[in-house]
């Protein structure tokens, strides 16, 4: 190899070494940011995972599934209900807890959506990760009229099936009538966001667009709404 060629190779090696060192330093730092003594949560007001709920690195994170996973949880009367009971309908699956203020705030909106879509091909289903007594009391006081399923560790296992192995609340999963997961919205829902997502779900249900296109449109639309809200 000639001299310029050797210099080029040397320069490339130096640059690669520098980038490797930087990334290595970053990854080591990230690993040290998670305290080694993290222990399971669970002594306060809500049930929690038993494998270190707060640790970002300790829990591997599956991706949001392509399709609605199969699961069963108990309803307000204690009866076991499978999510497949609403097979063939689009679903708005809302994960919440009674101790969570934004979860409480979005309940009236979910009731409104449920009422507006009554008798059509969409169902709102609440999944409360909480104690049954608290959920029953809350559901009675707030007159929740859509199906509510309840669980503690079993509900957390369901959340994990949606890629939320270490969940924060609320989060809401939207599916189309085929059971394909169209969007997972983390945080408190507001009317413009719900309307936008459901319009894409409707387009999907009527075969006007394909799933990847709908997902992309939702991601971009939500980003635009967030920017509008911030600006």
């Amino acid at each position, binding site marked *: 190899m000639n001299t*310029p060629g050797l210099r*080029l190779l040397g320069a490339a090696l130096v640059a690669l070494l520098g980038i490797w060192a930087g990334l290595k330093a970053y990854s080591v730092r990230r690993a040290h940011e998670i305290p080694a003594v993290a*222990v399971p949560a669970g002594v306060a*007001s809500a049930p929690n995972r038993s494998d270190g709920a*707060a640790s970002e690195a300790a829990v591997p994170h599956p*991706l*949001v599934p392509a399709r609605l996973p199969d699961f069963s949880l108990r309803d307000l009367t204690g009866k076991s209900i499978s999510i497949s009971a609403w097979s063939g309908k689009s679903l708005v699956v809302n994960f919440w807890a009674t101790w969570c203020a934004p979860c409480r705030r979005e309940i009236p909106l979910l009731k409104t959506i449920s009422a507006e879509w009554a008798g059509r091909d969409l169902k709102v289903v609440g999944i409360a990760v909480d104690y049954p007594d608290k959920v029953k009391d809350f559901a009675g006081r707030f007159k929740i009229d859509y199906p509510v399923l309840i669980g503690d560790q079993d509900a957390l296992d369901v959340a994990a099936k949606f890629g939320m192995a270490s969940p924060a609340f609320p989060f809401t999963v939207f599916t189309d009538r085929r059971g394909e997961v169209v969007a997972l919205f983390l*945080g408190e829902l507001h009317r413009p966001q719900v309307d936008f997502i459901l319009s894409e779900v409707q387009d999907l249900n009527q075969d006007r667009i394909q799933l990847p296109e709908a997902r992309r449109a939702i991601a971009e639309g939500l980003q635009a709404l*967030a920017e509008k809200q911030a600006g």
Partner: protein
Amino acid sequence: MQRTQATLLSLFLLLGAAGTAHAKPWWMRGIESNETDFLPPDVAFRVAARIDGSALKVRWVIADGYYLYKQKFEVKAESPDLLVSAPQLPAGVVKTDPYLGTQEIYTQQVEAVVPYTRIDAGAHPIQIKVTYQGCAEAGLCYPPITKVLFPNAQPALVAPNVPPYPWESIAITAGAFAFLLAGLVLRKGRKLDVPA
């Protein structure tokens, strides 16, 4: 030669992009999920404890846009020979939510003073278990978090506004420096190629 340099440049840019992709919170990586930028709980709420005379001081540093509930704080003894009193907390900010009622919250940072006594004069290291719970103003709440801390082994956090990932900047700077160095080596090579 130019083609080789262009290829190398593309490689560096690709490596750089791969490095920054990890900076996103884990729940924001898929197109199926919204892009709202919520922090992982351990970044939103950083906690450390230290021994200060006859009291333990536990400090939480809270990211901008996040808060902790006063009534959710708990500090318990974890060492067998340790007795702790109830944490003494300053007055919080009163937050009224029509759906949750009135609560006291903390933003930015808060320090709990926890008086303690030891039964057998230090046979075991001081170890406490702290529980806390908080939310993001943007509408997300984290389940209660419980951690075991060794107050004499961890320095207290002092900077309220530490960037979440300072080493990311160092990684980028190191890459840029290496790239500059590589450029200088190449430039030197060119000079040598110029006929006198």
